[in-house]
């Protein structure tokens, strides 16, 4: 268990995770206090949140926005990713990749001018944040496509468009799904940030900012726990869905 590269079975691993989490919570409970709430206080706040419609309504708002953002992000990523193999479109795809170095601060006003309402503003900001990361991962997949895949296509008599369809569009579909799964965290992390920019429509981000304003840390941490739990849940679901849609990824 303490040797490098040693393999442990799933059950042992789960016991390790559970016990380490328990120890951390215990230490937190025993050493916490003052301004930082103890786990028991956070749990109590979470219990209160769960008994009202407030959390559910705001969660649904956030989930809807995340879903929309992911849908459009994937669409844009696929469009630019597939087009990047055509030399004419490559500069545009590479520019999007470099956009990940840009920060939203300073650009928000421009986005406000370009959009009609708060909903559109949030969506466009999310897209701006997610797309560069998605496209970076996707272009890396395309770039690392084994040459043999293209050569097999060629030996089967495929033209270049057919090679693109078989080796990239069909052949990399499972990896697109994995990229989305890995980058879902970015969308989920950003949602709380952009919701703070337009609080009228609600959302967990808006709710958290509200609690934060009054230094209600138990509720802030309870919301963080909900966000983390949901993120892990989605990560697992997307993993299961990937194996179901692309059975060959199981082997």
């Amino acid at each position, binding site marked *: 268990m303490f040797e490098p590269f040693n393999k442990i079975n799933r059950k042992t691993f789960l016991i390790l995770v559970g016990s380490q989490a328990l120890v951390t919570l215990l230490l937190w409970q025993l050493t916490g206090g003052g301004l930082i709430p103890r786990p028991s206080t956070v749990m109590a706040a979470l219990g209160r949140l769960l008994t009202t419609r407030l959390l559910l309504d705001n969660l649904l708002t956030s989930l809807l926005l995340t879903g929309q953002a992911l849908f459009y992000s994937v669409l844009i990523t696929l469009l630019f990713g597939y087009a990047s193999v055509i030399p004419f479109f490559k500069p545009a795809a590479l520019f999007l990749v470099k956009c990940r170095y840009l920060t939203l601060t300073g650009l928000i006003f421009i986005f406000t001018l370009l959009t009609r309402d708060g909903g559109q503003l949030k969506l466009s900001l999310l897209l701006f944040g997610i797309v560069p990361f998605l496209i970076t991962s996707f272009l890396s997949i395309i770039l690392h496509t084994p040459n*043999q*895949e293209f*050569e*097999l296509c*060629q030996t*089967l008599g495929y033209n270049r468009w057919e090679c693109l369809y078989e080796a990239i569009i069909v*052949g990399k579909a499972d990896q697109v799904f994995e990229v989305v799964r890995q980058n879902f965290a970015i969308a989920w992390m950003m949602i709380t940030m952009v919701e703070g920019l337009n609080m009228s429509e609600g959302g967990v981000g808006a709710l958290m900012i509200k609690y934060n304003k009054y230094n209600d840390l138990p509720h802030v941490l309870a919301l963080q726990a909900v966000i983390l739990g949901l993120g892990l849940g989605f990560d697992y679901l997307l993993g299961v869905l990937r194996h179901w849609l692309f059975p*060959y990824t199981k*082997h």
Partner: protein
Amino acid sequence: MTTYSKKEVLLRVEDVSLSYDRACILRDIRFCIRDIVRPGLQQGQVVSLVGRSGIGKTQLFRLLSGLRRPDTGSIAIRERLPVEKGDGSIELYQERMVQPGDMGVIFQNYYLFGWRTVRQSLLLAARRNKDLAGREEDAIRQYTQRFDIEDVLHRYPAQLSGGQQQRVSIIQQLLKGSDFLLLDEPFSGLDVCMLDKVVELLLQVSLSDELKTLIIVSHDIVTAVAISDTVFILGRQAGLAGSTIVREIDLMERGLAWQKGVREEKVFAETVREIKKWL
């Protein structure tokens, strides 16, 4: 001695050279493969290109498959294609430069699309073959039965053994319908039992059509001689950069082609020794 005759040129390689990073890899490669006719028999051709490791066999393999263009020279194949002439006669064959897709290519690691089941992979290839239009499924069934892999049709490549992958790879290229089958090191990494099976399989393929031509690129001289009718030796010449064909050995002339127990023959051992000297 078996009666045979050499007819039309099926593949012509003329003055092919290739350099990589200004270093000459292949130089003045020149050889041709002719249709071998045996009376009363449907007999394809099995040609081996042998050479030491690092001599440029894989580069020649890529040139022959059309996946790479030579710096100079040409590689032409005889294509089965009706061409109407002005005088009303019909010529059934024409010679043209090799293109990617002209040859069935079996890579050393029997590469298959990881996201396609065996059936899907075979269907993709069968659909490229106009002669099989409407009969793709039947053709797949026949080949998979013949090669004993009908029970793995719904598996993915990752679920297949090395031998099964090799058979799927061969069937895929056969279904595509090319007269030429180019194999890169098909004997490498096989155990003795599997090696015999592969040799048997390739001989079976060579007998499937008069124009079926197997070009085996290998460094396994013994197996290559045992299975082929002609051997081309790729080697270097003193004082000259790059590899070239240093010798062509007609195994039919020596009575070594199409014989089951050929390895026991004295002349077989002599031929293997001769090839080793040229390497």
